[in-house]
């Protein structure tokens, strides 16, 4: 048996060791930590034609049984030793943390935090489903029709499988697809190139908990394969940068997850109190290594921008890379150092445009891009911009980066653009009313709540139930008219 783990593709739950294999490397040393089977698009087309079998297997369970199964899968994911590859290897939670940290660049402490988020999403699946369905009784979900509160309801699935073209940036992003299983829709996952570990472990956790293996497809594949997932699954999620997301923006079968452009807005009524919010602001920018789409990438204020930027720079500027096992580690390394180079260059180029100043530079004591123990890191960067028109004002990067922008309160909502999560620090009823009316914000926090907070009963980034099911009207003759 080879010591090096090999992660196979899972074709309707069955391991498939491809002749095409890619290495997954230590982001610092380049050492190969595992190999991953990659499959050609034809394999996907072949298997997708049979995904109805996966749905049929899930339909043999009730929703209640699948919710209970999610609870068991949560335990396996967090604490279990699960099969890893085709060589009989297994993976303990500690091995998962270490390996994922090694290949993705996330420090252990952040991997563990992500692990707990996923665990929480699985254990709270009953709440999640109630949130997604707005409280539809589970027996109605099981039958596809029924009556609740005197109203007749009927749903049909929009697809036989949910396609997932996943990113590599943060493990907790996998929590987005978890409700598909209790909603009885199989998943077809293309993992991110540097992060096969989390979706594979989740699938193994589900199977260990008793889920039917044929409900899971795990297909490391190329661009053509990814495109086939998006084309052939009736519903799919894709993650990527703006160019990727623009490509699918008008396709209702594809839910696009690109940059979040999340923000914190401070109202004129609270702007004098900004020092009280400093820790909150720093957390929204830097938690999870600044890698999430719900990390704030802009702090929008009517006044005091320079002071806020300076205070954030003093707080975040000195943050340095640390050993992955360091419990205080805050920064994530880049699995692809060229990406760090590109980001660094983009910021430098942006700073050439008048109207912006990097405030962190004075507090960092060194360059933004650093190599630490072989890994490439970007240190936190706060840029003070004089308007949203500046090219660095509304940018999102994969590290703790934020602009601090001065915008008069009356103009804020006209200028912020689409924003996945917004924390609004205001008690001004008129401003709150405008925020509640604003169609650009997907998740709104009123008061000192981090943009990073996720509420399981309130979906952001689209509603998985409404994505996977469509409402229909159903009329059924009653039994007295002949047993229809």
């Amino acid at each position, binding site marked *: 048996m080879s010591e090096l783990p090999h992660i196979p593709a899972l074709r309707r739950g069955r391991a498939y060791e*491809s*002749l*095409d294999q890619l290495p997954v490397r230590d982001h610092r040393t380049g050492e190969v930590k595992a190999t991953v089977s*990659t*499959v*050609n698009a*034809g*394999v996907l*087309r*072949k298997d997708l*034609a049979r995904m109805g079998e996966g749905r049929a297997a899930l339909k043999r369970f009730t929703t209640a049984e699948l919710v209970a199964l999610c609870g068991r899968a949560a335990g396996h994911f967090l604490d279990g030793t699960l099969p890893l590859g085709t060589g009989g290897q297994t993976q303990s939670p500690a091995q998962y943390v270490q390996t994922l940290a090694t290949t993705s660049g996330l420090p252990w402490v952040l991997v563990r935090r992500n692990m707990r988020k996923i665990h929480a999403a699985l254990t709270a699946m009953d709440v999640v489903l109630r949130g997604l369905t707005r409280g539809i009784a589970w027996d109605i979900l099981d039958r596809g029709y029924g009556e609740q509160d005197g109203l007749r309801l009927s749903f049909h699935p929009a697809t036989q499988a949910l396609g997932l073209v996943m990113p590599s940036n943060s493990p907790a992003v996998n929590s987005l697809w978890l409700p598909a299983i209790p909603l009885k829709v199989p998943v077809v996952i293309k993992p991110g190139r540097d992060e096969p570990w989390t979706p594979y472990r989740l699938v193994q956790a589900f199977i260990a908990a008793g889920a039917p293996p044929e409900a899971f497809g795990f297909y490391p594949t190329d661009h053509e394969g990814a*495109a086939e997932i998006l084309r052939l699954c009736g519903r799919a999620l894709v993650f990527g940068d703006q160019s990727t997301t623009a490509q699918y923006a008008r396709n209702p079968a594809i839910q696009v997850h690109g940059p979040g452009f999340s923000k914190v807005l401070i109202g004129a009524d609270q702007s004098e109190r900004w020092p009280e919010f400093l820790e909150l602001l720093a957390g929204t920018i830097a938690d999870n290594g600044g890698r999430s789409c719900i990390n704030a990438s802009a702090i929008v204020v009517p006044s005091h921008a320079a002071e806020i930027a300076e205070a954030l720079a003093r707080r975040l500027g000195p943050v340095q890379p640390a050993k992955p096992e360091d419990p205080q580690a805050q920064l994530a390394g880049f699995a692809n150092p060229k990406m760090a180079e590109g980001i660094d260059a983009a910021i430098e180029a942006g700073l050439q445009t008048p109207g912006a100043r990097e405030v962190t530079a004075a507090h960092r004591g060194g360059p933004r891009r650093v190599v630490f123990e072989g890994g490439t890191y970007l240190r936190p960067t706060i840029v003070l911009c004089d308007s949203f028109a500046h090219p660095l004002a509304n940018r999102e990067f994969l590290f703790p980066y934020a602009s601090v922008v001065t915008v008069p309160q009356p103009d804020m909502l006209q200028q912020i653009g689409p924003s996945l999560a917004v924390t609004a620090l205001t008690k001004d009823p008129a401003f709150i009313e405008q925020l509640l009316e604003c169609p650009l914000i997907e998740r709104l926090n009123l008061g000192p709540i981090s943009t990073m907070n996720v509420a399981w009963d309130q979906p952001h980034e689209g509603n998985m139930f409404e994505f996977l099911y469509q409402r229909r009207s159903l009329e059924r003759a009653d039994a007295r008219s002949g047993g229809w």
Partner: protein
Amino acid sequence: MESSLAVDPGATQAAQAALDAHLRDIIQWHFSPETGCPVWLEWAGQAGWDPRREVRTVADLQRFPHFQDEWLRDRQPEVWVPRAYQGRPFNIFETGGTTGMPKQRIGWEDYKVDYSEFSTKLADEHFPRQHYWLMMGPTGPRRLRLAIEHLANVRGSSCYFIDLDPRWVKKMIAEKRSDAARAYMDHVVEQAVTILKHRRVSGLFTTPKLLEALAEKLDLYAAGIRGVFCGGTTMTPQYIRFVVEEVLEGRIGFYPTYGNTLMGLAASVPLRPEDHYSITYYAPQPRAVLRVVDPANTGRLVEYGAWGRVELTTMTKEFFMPRFLERDEAIRRPPRAPYAWDGVGDVRPFGALEKNIVEGVY
């Protein structure tokens, strides 16, 4: 298993001697005023040396520069006519799937020789004699169209044809019009489905992608197909495995080939389990020679098992083309019975790992 297919050193030497003798004949032919073509006679006049006297073995081919295929685009076809063939109408075949002025090779009988020989590699159980074939692929100005028909005819069979214009497909893909490319491919495949539903066909020639698309539309075995002869684009070991196991379901004979208008056809040796679906092709020596050379020093062969650029020398009385560097790379493989010369394995576009190369469905 390895030993049963290993080639006796004596056979290798004999093949080399036959190749050298063939080379001397061809050089004599192309560089003699009585038989040679204007292009090579003119070249020799300016080269300052007489290949007829100085080229004795294949190693001496190094004295020629790499053949530039632009000559096939820039010059009129008649300059390639050997004097001995003057007055005989010729076929004009075009290469590849690129747009713009195409490269052209003229010919008379070469394709028949190549494909008659290739017929001996086909098993009757896969390509029954006195039956019907279907070609779904690039016809038009390509040698392949006549070659496939000849091959079917040699086996007492006739062939249906469905055209695919690879230049259009490449254009669509290069312009990122994938929907248009897919629609065109569907249009081609639908025609094949119609033929297979209404006519008895046992042998199929197509490209890998079209084969896959056709198999998604109907059960090839149930439709009567028993043998598939495939070529045209890269086929990685995993792709070959997928075709053998899942497209042809282990029930239909599969014959991958490597070839083009300039070379002819290199057949592959039957796969053994230890090949792990890695295909090796052997040139139709002595008419063509394939070498795997170091891209940085093309005079040097790479070691067995190493990757290098594919270099083709074609030497028939109709066409002489020394040391043409193909736009492909491959693994150099040792001789394997029944071939007593080197093979090229896992052929793929040159620089495939560094570049994103448009191959389309061709």
